[in-house]
């Protein structure tokens, strides 16, 4: 085991544990545990969102995609970024105004009742777990690669660590781990970029020329179409990306951790600035990787390109820098996984246990206890699922998650906030349609029975989700206990909430 790598790894683990300890002091009530009692400022929350969102897939994966495919890799990244406009414009404020601890709370503001809550929670949890698995798998692989630890053991270590953060530190620990990760990620990336630029003596033209030379694509490297040659597939993917963020539970609940709507807006805005800067830097790193490391090396190391950033670090700074980048990658994984475990936990404990099963007949202490227990359960579940997936292609699970989110939660939120006629049946039908169509297409697709050649079900599933909701609504009567009228003011101004 490489000592340098191990020391950095240890540093990250110890640091996050210290944060958790500090946060544990501040997680004594349910309000603190679930939403950090609104103690985050807009900018801090923005950093946390960025930390929650930029996964190792973005950091290592996008750099790799850009190194291999040039333009298209960067296009992929912009999808992630632009989705935040949808989030900011349409979703952020209403979620903040209506919700208390979970998405279930948001929907229940208009459609109270246990069945609705149960369904929303179930889908939310599924999405979170679906997203969790590729993250854990990636972390297992990374640790195996860099520290020589056995895959299963790696997954166990990570899984248990994340669970500890959530159990003891709740949302406070989750948020601050994410904030620290963002700081590390941004500073590490900026450092890398500067070192790279210094290496090429600040000569940008050298960079493009070298990239074109090194890449088998030659000049084509900078042309669109290297990755996304199939327009339908491309469209499906971009549609999922731009709409999916607004359906991811772990991102949505981030708007409940600020004190007021201004905070929610600042969060979304600052997240876009951070994420945008980050992807711009990844562009430079990706091009740098192919230019300085060379095509053969990159392909040899990992055919999916995930190691591009690490190999670049090795060229630029040897083991030390690699260890640092690895630590950053590791922190990135921790942050996202913790956020996901937390989202699943809060939904399970609050929506399902507290509201559905126990009908709110539970005092605060028991709520907290159950929440912590749930975290343990979710943690172990994810570990078990991930251990079995060592050999699978999990990258596509990420894009699948975005499709499902865009096809189920997003239409639901949109219609709940803005459509007067929308009713309960429509909500049910929309959720179920979106979900099942996605599953169906995946089953029929290249990962399943290979009947269709569509990897990403988005282009079919998303419209289906919307259609399902619309049809279900129009075909049935208006719900009797619909609170839309009352909610108009609250959804847009927050006035009238408790």
């Amino acid at each position, binding site marked *: 085991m490489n000592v340098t790598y191990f020391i950095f790894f240890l540093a990250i683990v110890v640091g996050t544990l210290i944060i958790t300890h500090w946060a544990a002091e501040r997680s004594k009530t349910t309000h603190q545990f679930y939403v950090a009692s609104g103690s985050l400022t807009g900018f801090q929350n923005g950093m946390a969102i960025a930390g929650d969102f930029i996964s190792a897939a973005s950091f290592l994966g996008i750099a790799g995609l850009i190194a291999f495919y040039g*333009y298209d890799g*960067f*296009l992929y990244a*912009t*999808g992630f*970024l*632009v989705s*935040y*406009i*949808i989030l*900011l*414009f*349409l979703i952020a*404020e209403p979620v903040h105004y209506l919700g208390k601890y979970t998405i279930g709370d948001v929907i229940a503001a208009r459609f109270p009742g246990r069945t609705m809550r149960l369904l929303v929670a179930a889908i939310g949890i599924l999405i979170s777990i679906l997203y969790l698995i590729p993250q854990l798998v990636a972390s297992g692989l990374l640790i195996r690669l860099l520290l020589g630890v056995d895959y299963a053991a790696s997954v166990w270590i990570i899984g248990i660590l994340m669970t500890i953060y959530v159990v003891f530190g709740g949302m406070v620990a989750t948020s601050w781990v994410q904030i620290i990760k963002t700081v590390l990620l941004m500073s590490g990336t900026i450092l890398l970029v500067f070192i790279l630029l210094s290496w090429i003596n600040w000569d940008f033209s050298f960079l493009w020329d070298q990239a074109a030379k090194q890449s088998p694509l030659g000049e084509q490297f*900078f*042309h*669109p179409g290297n990755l996304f040659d199939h*327009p339908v597939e*491309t*469209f499906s993917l*971009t*549609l999922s990306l*731009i709409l999916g963020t607004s359906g991811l539970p772990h991102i949505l609940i981030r708007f409940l951790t600020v004190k007021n*709507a*201004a905070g929610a*807006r*600042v969060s*979304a*805005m600052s997240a*876009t*600035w951070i994420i*945008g800067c980050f*992807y*711009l830097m990844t562009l430079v790193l990706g091009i740098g990787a192919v230019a300085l490391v060379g095509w053969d090396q990159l392909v040899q190391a990992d055919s999916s390109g995930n190691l591009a950033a690490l190999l670049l670090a090795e060229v630029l700074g040897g083991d030390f820098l690699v260890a640092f980048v690895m630590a950053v990658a590791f922190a990135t994984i921790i942050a996202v996984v913790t956020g996901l475990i937390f989202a699943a936990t809060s939904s399970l404990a609050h929506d399902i246990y507290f509201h559905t099963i126990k009908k709110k007949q539970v005092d605060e202490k028991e709520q907290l206890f159950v929440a912590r227990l749930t975290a343990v359960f979710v943690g172990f579940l994810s570990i078990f699922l991930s251990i079995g997936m060592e050999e699978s292609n999990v990258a596509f699970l990420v894009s699948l998650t975005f499709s499902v989110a865009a096809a189920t939660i997003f239409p639901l939120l949109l219609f709940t906030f*803005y459509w007067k006629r929308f009713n309960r049946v429509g909500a049910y039908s929309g959720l179920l349609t979106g979900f099942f169509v996605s599953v169906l297409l995946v089953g029929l697709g290249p990962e399943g029975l290979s009947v269709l050649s569509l990897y990403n079900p988005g282009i079919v599933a998303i419209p289906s989700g919307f259609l399902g909701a619309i049809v279900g609504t129009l075909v049935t009567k208006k719900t009797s206990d619909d609170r839309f*009228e*009352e909610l*108009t*003011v609250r959804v*847009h*101004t927050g*006035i*009238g909430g408790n």
Partner: protein
Amino acid sequence: MEEKAETYSYHSLQQDQAFRRLLRRKSLFRLVITSCLLVFYLFFPLLLTNLGELFVMFSWIYLFSLFIFTWLLGYIYWRYAKAFEQKVQELYDENAR
């Protein structure tokens, strides 16, 4: 006594014409901009066929413009929503009297 006052003005706010107008404008604002953005992001690339030498440059300009739009729109919304919130507060205070 206080609670009553609040629900009263809350309800009356809902009925208030000025408020409804304000709300409609904001919803329109949001809808229009997001639709434009969606169109620009989703459909524009499909239009990009081989336009010759400047094709590469245009493609990259398109990409960077997405970045700039995202940041710009974010900022614009932030200002707009702040103004909106202020106006609503004024209406609410008037109503409460």
